[in-house]
């Protein structure tokens, strides 16, 4: 077992070294006819490939044998400490952490001492925490969370704490932090909107950002040309977004999943091109500038106040979106969407109007994008087509995917992570797409339900009293 695992890992590392050789090791300059051989990279690939393969194999094995999380682990109860340790060592997460520790320890000759020391320390700390949890705490924490779940007070308390944190946030940090939080919250709304189309109705939309652009340009144009107020444009942006959602939805009603993907991608690209090329109206790449910030009964605000004000506006919008999406999910139309996602033919056979259901999914998704687009334009005070490329569509899509399709809480967490991480980690900015790409793949394989799984509604019959869980 162990021998074959290691043999597989060695083969994987060698294969990876072969694959990456021309790109990681060789670098040519065809003008001066120079070749640079970066042999050190080969060592990196071999070494990292070996450990990556080990981790992969452990996770893959685990995925095959056991689908669910390690809920109450009966195998640990009533065992002596030593036996518990042995059982814990077979836990996939413990194994992965062990590999990570071994990996970092082995990095010694390749990286700076400072980096080595820190990475080893952190890996060791996480491993120790996990082991301690496994050995001593599992039962206690479980019972604690059970108490939390059952207590009638826990929910209101949680909301109160969250509410205070949200209100306190802009006053506790500088306006830069508030500003990026606004952007992150804008993406939360976008994620929630796309969640309706992709997560609930299962219609893949690769050009979602176009509706966002519609909202932003609605406000940008109406404000700079006709001086229309933010508050008039806010619903207008949403409505025009919806209109475009229906308009684009119409020709593609008959298309099935994969055709849909390419057509929506095409729409996104057409929208971007029109914004870029039709300079008489949209001002091309130069963009529209000096858009007004949202007003509050004509009050004069300086930059910091305006930022805080925008922050609360977006928070309200986020709450509104959550509320509406939540209600929608349980409504007739929400059920229809989910049914459509699961099986289109069966769904239509059950008498659900396919056209109306699909169009409404597009329309609702587009509505939120259009609305939040207006806020986006108002926040930036200037817009140009560069903010509405395919990459942005991909960001929103990965927010939905990482968050767990259909799960509202998951989408919020994913949006915050996706948008805030690069702001705080500017140094690793270059690598973020590499990591996101890999995470998208791994997520689909090892955790398709996303960060926070969508709780599917299940009905249990328990005697006379039906109960939802």
């Amino acid at each position, binding site marked *: 077992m162990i021998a074959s695992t290691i043999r597989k890992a060695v083969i994987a590392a060698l294969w990876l070294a072969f*694959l990456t050789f021309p*790109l990681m090791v060789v670098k040519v300059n065809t003008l001066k006819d120079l070749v640079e051989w970066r042999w050190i990279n080969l060592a990196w690939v071999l070494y990292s490939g070996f450990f990556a393969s080990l981790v992969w194999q452990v996770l893959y094995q685990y995925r095959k044998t056991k689908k669910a999380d390690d809920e109450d682990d009966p195998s640990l109860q009533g065992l002596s400490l030593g036996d518990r340790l042995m059982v814990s060592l077979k836990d996939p997460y413990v194994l992965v952490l062990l590999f990570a520790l071994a990996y970092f320890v082995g990095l010694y000759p390749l990286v700076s001492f400072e980096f080595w020391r820190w990475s080893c320390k952190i890996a060791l700390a996480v491993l120790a925490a996990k082991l301690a949890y496994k050995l001593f705490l599992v039962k206690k924490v479980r019972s604690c969370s059970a108490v939390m779940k059952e207590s009638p007070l826990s929910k209101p308390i949680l909301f109160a704490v969250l509410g205070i944190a949200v209100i306190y946030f802009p006053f506790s940090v500088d306006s830069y932090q508030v500003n990026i939080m606004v952007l992150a919250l804008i993406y939360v709304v976008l994620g929630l909107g796309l969640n309706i189309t992709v997560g609930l109705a299962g219609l893949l939309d690769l050009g979602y950002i176009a509706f966002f652009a519609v909202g932003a340009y609605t406000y940008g144009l109406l404000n700079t040309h006709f001086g229309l107020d933010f508050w008039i444009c806010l619903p207008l942006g949403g409505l025009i977004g919806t209109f475009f959602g229906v308009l684009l939805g119409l020709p593609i009603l008959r298309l099935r999943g*994969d055709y849909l993907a390419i057509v929506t991608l*095409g729409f996104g690209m*057409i929208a971007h091109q029109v914004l870029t090329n039709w300079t008489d109206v949209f001002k091309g790449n130069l963009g529209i500038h000096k858009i007004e910030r949202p007003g509050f009964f004509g009050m004069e605000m300086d930059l910091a106040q305006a930022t805080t004000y925008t922050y609360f506006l977006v928070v309200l919008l986020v709450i509104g979106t959550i509320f509406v999406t939540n209600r929608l999910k349980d409504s007739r139309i929400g059920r229809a969407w989910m049914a459509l996602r699961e099986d289109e033919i069966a769904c239509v056979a059950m008498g659900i109007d396919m056209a109306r259901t699909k169009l409404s999914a597009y329309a609702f998704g587009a509505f939120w994008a259009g609305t939040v687009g207006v806020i986006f334009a108002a926040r930036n005070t200037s817009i140009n087509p560069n903010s509405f490329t395919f990459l942005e569509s991909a960001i929103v899509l990965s927010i939905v995917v990482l968050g767990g399709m259909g799960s509202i809480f998951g989408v919020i967490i994913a949006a915050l992570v996706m948008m805030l991480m690069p702001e705080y980690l500017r140094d690793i900015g270059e690598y973020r797409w590499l990591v996101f*790409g890999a995470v998208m793949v791994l997520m689909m394989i090892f955790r398709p339900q996303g960060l926070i799984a969508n709780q599917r509604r299940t009905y249990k019959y328990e005697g006379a009293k039906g109960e939802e869980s």
Partner: protein
Amino acid sequence: MSFLDFDWEYFLLLFAGGLVKGSIYALIALGYTMVYGIIQLINFAHGEIYMIGAFVALMVSGVLTIYGFSGVSILVLAAIVAMIYAAAYGFTLERIAYRPLRGAPRLSPLISAIGMSLFLQNYVMLSQTPDFLRFPSLIPDFAFMEPIAHIINSVEVVILGTTVITMLGLTYLIKFTKVGKAMRATQQDMTMARLVGINSDRVISMTFVIGSVLAAIGGVLIASRLEQINFMIGFLAGVKAFTAAVLGGIGNIPGAVLGGLVLGLTESMAAGYISSAYEDVFAFGLLVLILTFRPAGLLGKAVKQKV
């Protein structure tokens, strides 16, 4: 404008340009369509294989130039190594990103594919450079072509020739070889194919390998025509080729070729007679139009869904 006033030479020039562009689209589109035909998956990362093929060819030709090889031998060796590597990448891609997801909901492998595409783009960018790189013009200018070089030059002749030969080879492979038969059987009914003893996993791997080799050929050809590459070339080419595959009816091999040519010619004509600023708008507009009237594409058959 009367018939004779029409600028036929200009039309011919645009036609030749569109044909060349279309045949590259067709080469890449074949990879999409073959994979889709068998496992109903849009291999979003296919464009990246094309890009990696071009990069590998660049590395090989760079190294060989320094060791004193010349002209055609570099071209042949670079193309062969590029094809081998593309095949290896295609194979690995399927093993890592798609095979574990067999039987998962339709959206999962697609998202995995988008993730893979992002990953490969950035992997090349980080391991090489975000700048454009010069790709040596490996195909020489033939002297006898000089009089008509403004219509079609030797690079373009090589592109067209290679495309035709590749298509013929592919047709032969699919129609008359054992692998081809297995592929067709798997495409028709995977369960049934398994029952009669076809190793469907191997057939799927084979499909990825063949598709990737075709993409690498396309990559080397287009790179030696444009004489430059960077890590993003795969994305736009991939999107266009995929459009071509859908246009012709995805899963249908002659359809991919037809779709590629139609798309290339449409773009060329739109750019020549209207404006190249809206080239892509026309390409996607055509796609939406055709799909509105023929939801299964030009040559695709509308499949009746059985319940």
